[in-house]
């Protein structure tokens, strides 16, 4: 019995099926390729972070050395190695978002939740972090909360969102200033005329 099993980590039935689904994508004997999705599934099952026991469990599961799993899990920043709150709030601080006021967004969240970067609120609801480019520059500034992106934010709007999440209300993810995805706000500024194909 592996250490992980002793400590009680084991796939739930659904996650086992999901893990097998990912492993099946790769040729026989290449099951190790599924290490990243499996780590992600395990992290979700474990409530947001991976532990040594989980990494060893996955190493056993994929028949690979535990150090290789640990290398992957520490290389990618989306695997957490410490417990996090129920909602992981990640503020993008890279140049476009920064130019569009990410500092103010971050300050607003810090003030509202009463925590600093890297900390978790006392009620265990929110963990705050700053990340490098979230890849949604056209909708800067951007904050991701859990699996959702909240875009085109203002300091006021982001605190509203946090409150709504706290109260268990539904929040619509995506642009918060009323525009559709990354289309221009208001009227079209280019390609304004529809030209029939000759």
């Amino acid at each position: 019995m592996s250490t992980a099993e002793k400590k009680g980590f084991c796939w739930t039935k659904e996650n086992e099926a999901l893990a097998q689904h990912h492993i099946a994508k790769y040729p026989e004997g290449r099951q190790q390729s599924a290490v990243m999705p499996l780590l992600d599934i395990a992290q979700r099952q474990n409530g947001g972070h991976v532990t040594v026991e989980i990494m060893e469990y996955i190493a056993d599961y994929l028949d690979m050395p535990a150090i290789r799993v640990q290398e992957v899990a520490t290389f990618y920043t989306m695997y957490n190695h410490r417990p996090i709150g129920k909602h992981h709030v990640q503020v993008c601080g890279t140049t476009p978002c920064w130019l569009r006021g990410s500092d103010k967004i971050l300050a607003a969240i810090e003030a509202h939740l009463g925590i600093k970067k890297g900390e978790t609120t006392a009620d265990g609801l929110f963990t705050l972090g700053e990340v490098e480019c979230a890849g949604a520059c056209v909708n800067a500034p951007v904050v991701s909360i859990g699996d959702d992106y909240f875009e085109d934010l203002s300091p006021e709007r982001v605190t509203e969102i946090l409150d709504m999440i706290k109260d268990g209300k539904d929040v619509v993810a995506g642009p918060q200033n009323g525009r559709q995805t990354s289309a221009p706000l208001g009227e079209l500024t280019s390609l304004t005329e529809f030209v029939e194909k000759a």
Partner: protein
Amino acid sequence: MPTLTIDGKEIEVENGITVLQACEEAGVEVPRFCYHERLSIAGNCRMCLVDMEKAPKPIASCAMPVGEGMVIHTNTERVKKAREGVMEFLLINHPLDCPICDQGGECDLQDQAVAFGRSGNRYEESKRAVEDKNMGPLISTTMTRCIHCMRCVRFSTEVAGVTDMGSLWRGEHTEVTTYLGKILDSEMSGNVIDLCPVGALTNKPYAFTARSWELKGTESIDVMDAVGSNIRVDARGAAVMRVLPRLHEDVNEEWISDKTRFACDGLKKRRLDRPYVRRRGKLEEASWSDAFAAIKKKLKGMKGAEIAGVVGDLADMESMLAFKDLLGKLGSKRIEGRQDGAAIDNAVRAGYLLNAGISGIEDADYLLLVGTNPRVEAPIINTRIRKAVLSGLKVGNVGNAEDLTYAVEEFGDDKAILNAIISGKHAAADALKKAERPMIIVGQGALTGEDGAAVLKAVRDIADTYCVKDGWNGYGMLHTAASRVGAMDLGLVTKGGVDSILDDASADKLKAVFLLGSDEIDTASLKKTFTVYIGTHGDEGVQNADVILPAAAYTEKSGTYINTEGRVQRTEKAVFAPGDAREDWTILRALSDVLGDTLPYDTLAQLRDALAKAVPAAKTLDTVPTEAWGDFGTAGDVASGGIAPTIENFYLTNPIARASETMSQCVDAREDIAGEATGTHG
């Protein structure tokens, strides 16, 4: 065979090699840190950048395969700037603590910074610091110095076959570490010290004891096992400070085992540095003449049949010959060279050699191990087997299932399997039959039982049926002792072996027993017998000795050894033996003088001439002989029963290793892991 131009010189090279290798062939030096010819290509240090015409930017020559018509420049301004740039980046987070670094003076980073770096540094911010890692009692770590070449990670994964090392985190936060800070659990772990191009991984027992330029290097041979690894003994004054590997492609490549490297502190501990004579039950210090006189007095009137000798595992051939000759003059022919009681038959030389040679393992396509655990008996050979396995060798094992660091088909440890293999009714027989170059390696563990001779015969028959073909002798015996093949060549075998000598001694049939460094026998039965011990350490052999004559260890004499392949090699004298200790053969010759019949050699050269006459094979240095195949072993019933390798603990196989503090630390460190694993610890 592509032709390329390197710095204006046209050169034709083998297909499939890299630009860096081609540059080497052309005699052009390319600096590098991560590239190592025995490891996979990583391409992560960027130091080997060179210019290739038609390429938009410099290329990493270690990772670029050669192509027809390539034009390479290594001396352009751009290459110079690229190297300076890489060097400057490498040095950004390097502490530049050379004055307090053990690698100083033999550091790749230091040398290449001087040769290829800028003179100044434009980095003014804080350098990063990295916590040191625990890698056990052998490897000292200063991870702030690490430049992330990953040679150690690749070595442990690829060559040593233990996946204990890796690099965690990323970018500036990258840290090379062992898994959860455990020790690097390999018998080959010390090689990462040589591989580390900086001072991140250094020799822990040697730490801060010497500077490389103070040491006198002596090219020698290792005697910790029967491999005969080529080593360099670094000494300062009278002390051996460290042991390093020397390159020998057919023996140890450029690796040595941890015992070879780290047991050298045992050369300073528990040494016999003066003769002792037992008086009234107590060992007392004595002069050489008193010791010799005591022996003369005791031997007076003793018949040759009442005298016997046992040769230990570390004896060189010169000593063994002088030992044999001395006992011969006393009328005794009863000298045993197989301390462990293995039923080696010395009738046919091919019967006790690894005939294909160590590098021949790479030519084999199937290997059957019988009663051997090469990982602890000869880590260098195990590493060679692993290398062959990675390129297609299949391995089967009759014996204890152990982790040999490669895939092994386990057939169980029942000796009776051998009968089934001979008659062809076993999976191993099919595999041997199918193979073009099948190989069988028998270990000493298979030969030490009651039916050892019959097992040897059975293995011989298997080899005869499957493994010996035209131009290929796949039969091999893996010895555990450096002296063993030489002892067999000198005919040091007796009926009944060492057990019968000990039995006769306790039954009072033997009146005197001479021990030449024999520490692996139970000397309790020699309590009543007059025992003369010639050796280096206060170990098992001196427990019941009546006269102790202090001798020289392998680093203190020039001695001939024949390794398990039959390769003749010589140790060289690096330091003098401590105190009154003398080289074994001079002791034996002086003793013979006192006893009234002087041995006929006054110099080492004369002794070597005598050796060449006694063992013609000892004349040819450093070749693997081709010996005629024959019949050996004794036909008999191979009883059903377990077959187990001989070595209990890799780190404690000989008196030098047992005296070594470092080796004890290795044992303790491993007991700690075992304790944790079973939950009995603390």
